């Protein structure tokens, strides 16, 4: 057993209001430079929808992630045999047209236009070429367009659903969508790292954050093609790839990442997970129907004396281990089992988990008037009447396993029924308790889930471990030696080469 720690995340989708504050706070800090305009380290998608870049989940097109070949894992986009012949033109590199061409407006025209018969206008101009352009796409172009035949119907996760079910999703009384905020998952088996010919990408040993060394990146663009979540981006101006860094400078000073800190819906949780690094390869190669449980299994119990001993052996302090024990992510993922990873079938072992949203059940029309006569306690039994098909949710969060998705949603629903019985009182407590048991949970657990979902304080949502940057190499090596590599920052202007 090789016990390692990962700063991991949970996003509670029922709480996301789709305000995009997270995306904006990130953009203002990290991607407001030339060449990064189109980069959204954090983006919020509407599901069902096509996402960003368009249809990123279609790996037949983008070739992201891993596949099992024989008994081993292989990248879909590259290999030791193929990377050199393909280096001059990457066959699976997405282009700006898969994202969008960033634009601004000629605002100065509003002030400087000569007097004339018409109102002056601010034309859209490309932020790449500066030329006037037609705006055809944007970073959240299908925002809120659930039920749209162009966007929602082309959601890759609807694949395999009966045509009739797909059609129903466009019906007015069935209209439904939820928000899907995404950042880099800081995976345990990152395809981006494994694909880089220069070895510019790496995972930090202490906290598992995945980074790109800007001085080693040579624009071979392999990581962009290999990441199935399309969370590494190519800076067309500097000729370097860039990605979400989980705001590590903030984490190292005890602050939550900007998107977490600013999240209006307070949907985000951050904390440590311990895992067994010796078993990553084995778990990542599990068959589709075993991999979700497999990943849960890989996560270790921070209270287990054997795990604690292993953690200490790898240099973790008592204090650090205590933070792991208080991690909200551990509770959501491992104890309560109500948080699931996105698209584990890509086999990168993402370490960002989602509490799936409890979507509304199907309404009915009475004399053409919309009504929903379902009683709260009945909702529990009506999963098959959810507006959004369970298979669809399972395709995103549980590798198609409907039973896992049902287990999660039932538990979440049971917590609501229980709290409703407690606070509103229109449900019998006996019924509520029965519901709890049927959902494999207890009063104590339901109370704990309720508290962590509805009432958590800042420090309960973000249990940021002491990363002790002051104890890293700079502390006992001659700082001058490291002046240009670690600790003293980037001393060279990030200027495009000749």
């Amino acid at each position, binding site marked *: 057993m090789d016990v390692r720690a990962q700063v991991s995340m949970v996003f509670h989708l029922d709480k996301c209001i789709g305000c995009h504050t997270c995306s904006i706070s990130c953009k203002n800090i990290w991607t407001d430079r030339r060449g990064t305009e189109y980069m959204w380290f954090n983006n919020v998608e509407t599901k069902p929808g096509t996402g960003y870049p368009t249809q990123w989940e279609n790996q037949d097109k983008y070739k992201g992630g891993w596949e099992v070949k024989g008994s081993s894992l292989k990248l879909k986009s590259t290999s030791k045999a193929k990377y050199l012949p393909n280096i001059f033109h990457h066959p699976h590199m997405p282009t700006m047209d898969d994202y969008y061409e960033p634009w601004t407006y000629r605002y100065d025209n509003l002030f400087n236009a000569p007097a004339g018969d018409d109102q002056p206008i601010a034309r859209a101009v490309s932020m*790449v070429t500066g030329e006037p352009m037609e705006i055809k796409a944007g970073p959240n172009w299908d925002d809120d367009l659930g039920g749209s035949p162009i966007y929602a119907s082309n959601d890759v996760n609807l694949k395999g659903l009966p045509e009739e079910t797909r059609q129903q999703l466009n019906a007015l009384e069935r209209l439904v969508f939820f928000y899907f905020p995404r950042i880099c998952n800081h995976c345990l088996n990152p395809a981006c790292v*494994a694909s880089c010919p*220069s070895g510019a990408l790496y995972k930090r040993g202490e906290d598992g954050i995945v980074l790109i060394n800007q001085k080693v990146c040579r624009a071979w663009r392999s990581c962009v093609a290999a990441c199935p979540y399309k969370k590494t981006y190519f800076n067309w101006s500097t000729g370097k790839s860039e990605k979400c860094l989980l705001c590590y400078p903030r984490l190292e000073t005890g602050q939550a990442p900007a998107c977490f800190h600013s999240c209006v819906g307070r949907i985000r949780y951050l904390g440590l997970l311990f895992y067994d690094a010796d078993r990553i390869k084995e778990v990542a190669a599990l068959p589709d129907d075993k991999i979700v449980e497999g990943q849960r299994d890989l996560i270790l119990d921070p209270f287990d004396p054997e795990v604690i001993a292993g953690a200490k052996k790898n240099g973790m302090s008592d204090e650090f281990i205590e933070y792991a024990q208080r991690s909200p992510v551990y509770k959501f993922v491992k104890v309560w089992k109500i948080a699931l990873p996105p698209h584990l079938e890509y086999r990168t072992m993402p370490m960002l988990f989602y509490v799936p949203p409890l979507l509304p059940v199907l309404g009915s029309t009475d004399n053409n008037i919309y009504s929903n006569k379902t009683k709260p306690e009945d909702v529990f039994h009506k999963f098959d009447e959810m507006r959004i098909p369970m298979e669809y949710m399972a395709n995103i969060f549980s590798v198609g396993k409907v039973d896992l998705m049902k287990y999660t949603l039932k538990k979440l629903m049971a917590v609501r029924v229980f709290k409703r019985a407690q606070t509103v009182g229109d449900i019998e407590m006996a019924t509520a308790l029965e519901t709890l048991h049927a959902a494999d949970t207890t009063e104590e657990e339901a109370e704990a889930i309720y508290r962590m979902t509805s009432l958590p304080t800042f420090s309960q949502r973000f249990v940021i471990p002491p990363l002790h940057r002051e104890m890293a190499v700079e502390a006992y090596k001659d700082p001058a030696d490291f002046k240009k590599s670690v600790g003293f920052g980037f001393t060279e202007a990030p200027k495009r080469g000749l």
Partner: protein
Amino acid sequence: MPSLLAQSESLFANLDSVLFVGLPYAAIVLFLYATIRRYVSSKFGYSSLSSQFLENKKLFYASAPWHFGIIALFFGHLIGFLIPREILWWNSVPARLYVIELSALIFAILALVGLVNALHRRATSSRIRVVTSKMDVVILILLLIQVVDGIWIALFHRWGSSWFAGIMAPYLWSLFKFSPDISAVKEMPFAIKLHVVGAFVILGVFPFTRLVHMLVLPLSYMWRRPQQVIWNRDRRTTKS
């Protein structure tokens, strides 16, 4: 008073030693000094500066033929320089000579097609123009002259693979041994002289262009483990 003819002759003699002795040494020194300096002081600028993200289709017909062509030609010249005697032995059978010459010509045409496409792409795509520096244009034009001249030589000064071994390899070796002997090169026709001069000009401007990307060719990927983990605490050790 020396006659006009003699004067111009000595001028040419001087020009020859400038072009075939002075220029090569200047280019090699500049190449070594500036390339290393650039690597040490601005590593960030070492990049292939790919523009595939901005334009994908035309790039395929530019970059792929260009690189496959030029890399094959590069190794061809290198082999001719390193083992001239073996090349002469190989070429002693005409059929084998034709094989070498024909494949060299094919690679040269590939390179030419790629270069022309690259220049065309840089001239016509507005997105690509934004990421085209002055030095990109300079180097593409220098390379174009060099490749066209190379094809000219292949067609009109036949069997280069043989005379390269007899004339160019000894000349280049003499440069490396610091006892330059230009007696053979200076008798060469103009096209060949231009090719030699072009090569050293390209070498000299090399560190000031995107060509530095070939020095960071990532070969270690072939034997490295897929995952890289770097520790900040304790030592900066790399484990898989």
